[in-house]
């Protein structure tokens, strides 16, 4: 996955992501595609969660999947989640759950609960960084005020790092793939460098949902695992999603 939150020169915040899933889950030699990824694309759906006929939050999800990986609470915050690989991974949390230790929260249930119940950017940030979880993850959170954008690197128990937009330091966007920001990505899977190169080329003055779509359409940020691209504008309460494909030549991940 690749997720980013960017602030334009007027202080407006944009949040976007490519959802990549299905690595090593069945490579189709003939069609040069991943089997699970191919079957996930037709399941992509935009969902408007309402109470009393009013929108509580909106999300891009998969039919049959009740947790959330990408969502917006209009006027308040935007949230995406990227997978974090760790030896202390979700299978340990799962095992603990089976054995009866159930004080952690399932990742996608937490994100949905935050989208449904958090009352502000700070509240969402607090819940995402402090709630005990079954699996590690990266949470990418955007707000509605200048400077409100961060990447929360989570272990199962706590937040390991929070990396925020900082305009004073020239950091007008934060971007996450699937690697800790203080470490180099695996050299065979470096989507961070091209994504940052394209963001820097775009410049803060020209950042918009349109130019962010360009960044997320650049290979290998777009790759054979990409199922959808979602673009979100928190102030307008806008979420738009597109099903993606990556015809050859294209990286398998």
């Amino acid at each position, binding site marked *: 996955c690749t997720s980013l939150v960017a602030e334009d020169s007027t202080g407006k915040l944009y949040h976007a992501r490519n959802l990549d899933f299905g690595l090593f889950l069945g490579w189709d030699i003939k069609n040069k595609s991943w089997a699970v990824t191919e079957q996930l694309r037709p399941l992509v759906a935009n969902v408007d969660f309402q109470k009393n006929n009013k929108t509580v939050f909106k999300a891009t999800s998969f039919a049959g999947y009740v947790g959330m990986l990408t969502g917006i609470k209009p006027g308040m915050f935007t949230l995406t989640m990227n997978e974090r*690989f760790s030896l202390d991974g979700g299978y340990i949390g799962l095992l603990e759950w089976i054995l009866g230790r159930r004080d952690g929260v399932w990742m996608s249930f937490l994100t949905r609960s935050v989208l449904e119940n958090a009352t502000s950017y700070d509240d969402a940030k607090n819940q995402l960084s402090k709630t005990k979880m079954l699996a590690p993850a990266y949470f990418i959170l955007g707000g509605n005020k200048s400077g409100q954008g961060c990447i929360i690197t989570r272990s199962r128990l706590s937040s390991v790092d929070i990396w925020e937009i900082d305009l004073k330091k020239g950091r007008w966007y934060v971007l996450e793939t699937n690697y800790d920001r203080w470490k180099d990505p695996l050299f065979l899977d470096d989507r961070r460098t091209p994504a940052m190169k394209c963001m820097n080329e775009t410049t803060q003055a020209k950042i918009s949902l349109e130019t962010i779509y360009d960044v997320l359409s650049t290979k290998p940020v777009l790759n054979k695992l990409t199922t959808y691209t979602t673009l979100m504008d928190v102030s307008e309460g806008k979420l738009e999603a597109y099903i993606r*494909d990556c015809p050859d030549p294209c990286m398998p991940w």
Partner: protein
Amino acid sequence: QYVPPYTDYCRTGMYPPSGATFKGNVSWYTINLDLPPYKRWNQLISERKAELNNLIQVIKDLANAFVPSGKLIQLVDKDLPLLLDSLPSPFKEEIKGIADVSGVPLGEVLLFNIFYEVFTV
């Protein structure tokens, strides 16, 4: 390109989405949180039943390729549903509703919903 390091150029003018990298728009659905959790996903699942079954079948095929005896899927179908009651509300009721409307065995819908925790290894 197939080989890192990255040397491709940054795309421009891709929006509005079209062409080979765009496979389609995403449909909108409303989930009414005032409904009982069991019923919330009925419309969406009724419309995407076949696609959900296709995905589950691919996952089953992969599982059977790793464990040809079929015991892994037997475990998912027979034992995983025992976990459902330990899940918090409203998720357990929603998952049950999805399984009933789609016709996909409960354990397999549950596996799809906890895929992240299972596969972060």
